[in-house]
């Protein structure tokens, strides 16, 4: 069986997260020092060369994003760490922050140096007050040691809105507003927090950065899948034997994840489906399990890597029941700013309830396909665009579950 590869979770279980000396003794903050001895452009070039792509779902090249913010003249710039982690089935950012907070700070500070920002925010979801406390203690230690230099980090708490994981909604929330996404462009690297150039990266993205600076972009680019190198931290939930968190190279297949690391299906049952990337991810049938988990391979099968949540369902699960629950999630979490999402998520939920209750018809299925198609192009942000995916992919791959309930 393939082995775990720990880059992001390099210090997991090895250091006391609330003892900064542990982190420093493990080589921590050396990369920041090294970065500060390089030119800003060289730091960005190194990160670009690593081909590190965002771990928060969109998979954008981190170095390229940093370069946009670096290139803009401004009196103030910001670095934001997205720790909103709202995708159901996902808890990897919590694991990273709880076990190695300084790895995240170090990545943020390197980014701050590279783009010319002296202020960072960590936007941590409100459901993690215990993580907020830990982060604040760790920040206090970093300040006392002086390791962050001029770079200041402040923690802000989210308050239970899934959409606030979307970077412009997150920015609105830090500004003290309702967390509704902005129209883009301008994108945050040009105009973000309080209108200033802002880099928003995921916790896991930042946690990779120090290693890249320390060991070099070439080293990182050689790990895992070529187009989305490195590792991915995955959280396994549902009917899998090992409900746990793992970090694996990105060329690992879904089958290896579920049947190798995950130990297969619980209670000797058979596999039916897996939804990867969180609740907006596509459902994947048995026939596609040999797909590698990297961003592009997943996209190619109509699924996503997303947050790295791996939600496994056994043969006894009713797909329609699960998807109805998911449709309810989106109806609840739609922020209401744009009509296609506000109305679309509500109608989709209604239709799913109808099908689940046994009153649906073939026409309803066609309507859901049409509605889903419209939403995926017409919605303002990724929430509404991705919301139909569980419905559409299950109609494609698990049509029998729907047909069994139609009139």
């Amino acid at each position, binding site marked *: 069986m393939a082995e775990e590869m720990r880059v992001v979770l390099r210090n997991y279980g090895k250091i006391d997260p609330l003892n900064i000396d542990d982190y420093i003794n493990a080589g921590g903050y050396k990369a920041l020092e090294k970065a500060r001895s390089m030119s800003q452009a060289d730091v960005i070039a190194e990160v670009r060369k690593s081909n590190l792509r965002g771990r928060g779902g969109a998979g954008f090249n981190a170095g390229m994003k940093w370069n946009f913010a670096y290139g803009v003249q401004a009196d103030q710039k910001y670095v934001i760490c997205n720790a909103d*982690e*709202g*995708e*159901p*089935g*996902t*808890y990897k950012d*919590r694991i990273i922050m709880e076990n190695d907070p300084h790895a995240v700070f170090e990545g943020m500070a390197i980014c701050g140096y590279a783009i010319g920002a002296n202020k960072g925010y960590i936007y941590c*979801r*409100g*459901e*993690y*007050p*215990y993580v907020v406390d830990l982060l604040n203690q760790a920040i206090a230690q970093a300040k006392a040691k002086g390791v962050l230099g001029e770079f200041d980090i402040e923690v*802000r*708490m*989210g*308050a*239970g*809105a*899934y959409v606030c994981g979307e970077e412009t909604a997150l920015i609105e*929330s*830090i*500004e*003290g*507003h*309702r*967390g509704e996404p902005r129209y883009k462009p301008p994108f945050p690297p040009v105009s973000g927090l*309080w209108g200033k150039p802002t880099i928003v990266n995921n916790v896991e993205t930042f946690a990779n950065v120090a290693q890249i600076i320390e060991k070099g972009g070439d080293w990182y680019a050689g790990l895992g899948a070529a187009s989305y190198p490195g590792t991915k931290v995955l*959280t396994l*939930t*549902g*009917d899998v034997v090992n*409900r*746990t*968190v793992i970090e694996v190279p990105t060329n690992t297949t879904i089958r290896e994840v579920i049947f190798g690391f995950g130990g297969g299906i619980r209670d000797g049952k058979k596999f039916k489906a897996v*939804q990867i990337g969180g*609740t907006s991810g596509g459902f994947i049938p048995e026939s596609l399990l040999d797909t590698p988990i990297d961003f592009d391979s997943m996209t190619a099968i109509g699924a996503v890597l997303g947050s790295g*949540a791996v*939600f496994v*369902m056994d043969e006894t*699960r009713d797909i329609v029941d*699960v998807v109805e*629950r*998911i449709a309810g*999630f989106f109806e*609840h*979490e739609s*922020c209401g700013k744009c009509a296609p999402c506000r109305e679309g998520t509500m109608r989709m939920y209604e239709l799913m309830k109808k099908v689940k209750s046994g009153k649906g018809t073939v026409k309803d299925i066609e309507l859901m396909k049409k509605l889903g198609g419209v939403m995926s192009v017409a919605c303002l942000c990724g929430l509404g665009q991705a919301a139909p995916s569980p419905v559409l992919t299950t109609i494609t791959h698990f049509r029998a579950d729907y047909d069994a309930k139609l009139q």
Partner: protein
Amino acid sequence: MADYQEIIASYRGTPGGIIEAYHAVQREYNYIPAEAVKEAAGVFGLSEAQAYGVATFYSYLSVEPRGRYIIRMCESAPCHIAGAEEVIQAFEHALGIKVGETTADGKFTLELTECVGQCQGTPVITINSQPYAGVSAEQVPAILAQCK
């Protein structure tokens, strides 16, 4: 109990600090009283409608009074298939209230939530944000008995 005016005033200098102020008020009061919303509007230079709009946008914040123990059941898909429904029914039964309600003695409030990020142990509840993993309907009386 700290006064909401004092709490909110301490965030005056924090840009965009209204949400932090609401969190702090809620930590003391378990909800955000109407007067606190009004106060926050003044401190952060917003209209009352705007301040109310912020308070009601976020599901973690409540403008309705709640019990001393806020029990939230995760209903996201992984917890759903792990039997969240039965657990919530057991709480409703034991407390004699429905989801969204507070017991007459002001002790318990029952709410649904989406994933709270503790999915290694589905199904999950939180009591005043403290997670309890792998909860079953049978455990409900014992869990409630712990809340003094």
